[in-house]
């Protein structure tokens, strides 16, 4: 039923959890020089599990699942702060599906499903800031412009890019596309600037699909980011719970003291509320293949990213001095949480969307 997980969904969740627990190495990006932006070994393990193709239709060699399964996986990716560009990839695949071009789907989706080729997605629309600026050549075969900030683009072979007049293009990366990594808060999902100079491009869909691609893909991306935030918060709570039982002061585990206990209880409420909001968005997006579930997604972002920032900050606080050291893994989640909170619309911006749906019209 709604918000309940099927045995298959629980099995997927567990499988991804085990895999990431054993193989995700988020510290490398912080501790080792010249760490590649994408952990290719981890990516290929996720490919073996079918993650890149989860939501791609079966006729194109995907698993034919949908937003609910993606949300479950994404929560695990956030939990592990896994350095793999799954979100951008699955949203790019969704854009290609929505373009409704059979030939293009046949050509690309099987490779995207297997993960043999990697794709990235450049979002645009209300709440996305800074804004990508790109224009197409008159014959619609090349794209020029600049994307000032995008995640999951490094190492992608294909990029789904919007033009300033709202059309969608598929860009082949290569000589005419420069993707330059930028130092940013979260090193496990590194940011990049993309510069396009007459880059070879193909029109994705047409005028009749532009709006849908923009809204649905941005909504899916936001829902997945919200579920990452849930995973980030859940990890921080779990780690802090364990610490509060181990760490002793005044001869007692610090979790004995109500100042600590009550903050932990509030963290638990925040995590579960965030998960509920994220599930709300997942089920709403799954209800129809062309909805953008605007209110549910806004709610998921507002609730989950705020929860992630608060819970990771509380986790740092409850760890005391050790919480602000580089060697403790908490700051990896703190950084991811803040990134997710700000990236595609702040919580107050998302609440303004909910308010508009309730109060205007």
């Amino acid at each position: 039923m709604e918000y309940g997980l099927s045995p298959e969904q629980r099995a997927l969740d567990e499988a991804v959890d085990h895999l990431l627990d054993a193989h995700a190495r988020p510290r490398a990006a912080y501790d080792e020089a010249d760490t590649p932006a994408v952990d290719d070994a981890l990516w290929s393990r996720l490919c073996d599990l079918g993650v890149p193709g989860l939501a791609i239709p079966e006729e194109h060699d995907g698993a034919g699942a949908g937003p609910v399964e993606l949300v479950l996986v994404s929560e695990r990716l956030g939990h592990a702060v896994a350095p793999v560009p799954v979100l951008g990839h699955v949203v790019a695949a969704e854009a290609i599906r929505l373009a409704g071009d059979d030939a293009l789907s046949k050509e690309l989706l099987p490779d995207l499903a297997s993960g043999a080729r990697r794709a990235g997605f450049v979002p645009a629309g209300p709440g996305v800031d800074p804004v990508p600026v790109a224009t197409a050549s008159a014959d619609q075969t090349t794209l020029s412009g600049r994307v000032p900030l995008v995640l999951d683009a490094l190492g992608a072979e294909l990029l789904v890019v919007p033009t300033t007049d709202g059309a969608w293009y598929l860009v082949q990366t290569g000589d005419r596309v420069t993707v330059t990594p930028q130092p940013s808060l979260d090193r496990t999902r590194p940011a990049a600037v993309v510069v396009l100079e007459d880059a070879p491009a193909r029109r994705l869909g047409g005028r009749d699909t532009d709006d849908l691609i923009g809204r649905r893909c941005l909504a899916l991306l936001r829902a997945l980011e919200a579920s990452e935030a849930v995973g980030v918060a859940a990890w921080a709570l779990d780690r802090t719970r364990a610490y509060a039982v181990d760490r002793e002061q005044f001869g007692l585990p610090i979790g004995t003291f109500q100042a600590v206990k009550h903050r932990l209880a509030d963290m638990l409420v925040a995590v579960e509320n965030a998960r509920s909001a994220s599930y709300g968005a997942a089920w709403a997006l799954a209800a129809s293949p062309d909805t953008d579930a605007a209110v549910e997604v806004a709610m998921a972002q507002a609730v989950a990213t705020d929860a992630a920032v608060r819970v990771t900050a509380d986790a740092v606080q409850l760890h005391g001095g050790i919480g602000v050291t580089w060697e403790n893994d908490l700051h990896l989640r703190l950084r991811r949480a803040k990134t997710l909170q700000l990236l595609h619309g702040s919580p107050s911006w998302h609440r303004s969307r909910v308010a508009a749906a309730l109060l205007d019209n």
Partner: protein
Amino acid sequence: MQSAAVESLGLRLDTADQHWADQLNRWLDEHWPAHGEAIKSAAGAERERALRAWQHELAGARYASIGWPEQHGGRAATTTQQLLYYLALGAHRAPPATGRIGLNLCGPTLISHGTAEQQERFLGPMLRGEHLWCQGFSEPGAGSDLASLRTRGVVDGDVLVITGQKIWTSGANRADWMFALVRTDPTAPKRDGISFVLVPMDADGVEARPIKQISGDSDFSEVFLDEVRVPLANVVGGLNNGWSVTRTTLANERAVLFLGQQVALTSTMRKIVRQAREDLPGRGRAADDHALRDRIAEAWIETELVRINGMRNLAKVLDGQNPGPEGSMSKLFGQHVEQQVHELALDLGGGSSVLERGAENAPYDGKWALGWLRTRASTIGGGTSEIQRNILAERVLGMPRDPWADA
């Protein structure tokens, strides 16, 4: 009508459940309207009689307490059936049995721990609304720390002589019986010397005095017990076993209780949204105030979270899993939301909100002001938010117990 409501919850019914719901709906179609008229048109003692008569009707069809086992007049209802039951009552705007405190809190204890004689004597009248019950647990000196209660019960032959004071007793002024916790062994560690006793409210030495709350309502009473003589046969589960005996509730029922709160919150939110869109002379629309817009969105989101938390919990229970942390969380978060929503409702009305019922131009005839006062109790009654946080931290997150709490 209900099958649409059920589907909106994402639940698919099998034919047996569908049949169960159809039967219930047909029964309600036939039996509720007359009672509905009687209840609506009555007031005071007459209304009380009408509510009891409705419970009697429900009991006759084994619909008064469907979670009870069949041999005691229930239906051993599954969680799905509980859900269908509340949806069906809601759709007919019919209240559940008025003797809920007895049916939900005392009945299950009697069913699990009572003797055959006790069950025979008490369950029938409780089910039919002939006996309404109240719960005598809290005391002036024993609130959050309930186990420190001091009301004494002294054995005198085959009688227990009870002296002490209970407080915050809901419905004491209308109850026929009280199930009370009484200290029967003052020398034992505090949880070990307590008994669960059934006390007739009309016994000599029992006096209930209503407490007037900040809202002006009197939902609770103080109950004074002065050498009240109760047969030892009224002790449930044996002398000094009261603490463990009280911990009986029906899990099936708990998973659907959020529905009631959700319905109330959603309806309040709808009124808030409607009010915010009104263009008031001199004030304009609350919907144009940025700070209020943010709070309205926040309150709406939190109301929706209460629903999804409840649904996730329900989905787990229906699936045969243990309820997760969502169950224990729902009280802490739900009571917070109730308060927030009423605070917002009052703030929307601005200066007019200070007007109470009967004043000219009081928003919603003072209902907001009343609700605001009433919901101050939301985070206190049934376990304060602070106690709920302790419970969550200790039982769900595995934190050590408060060092002073053990006995």
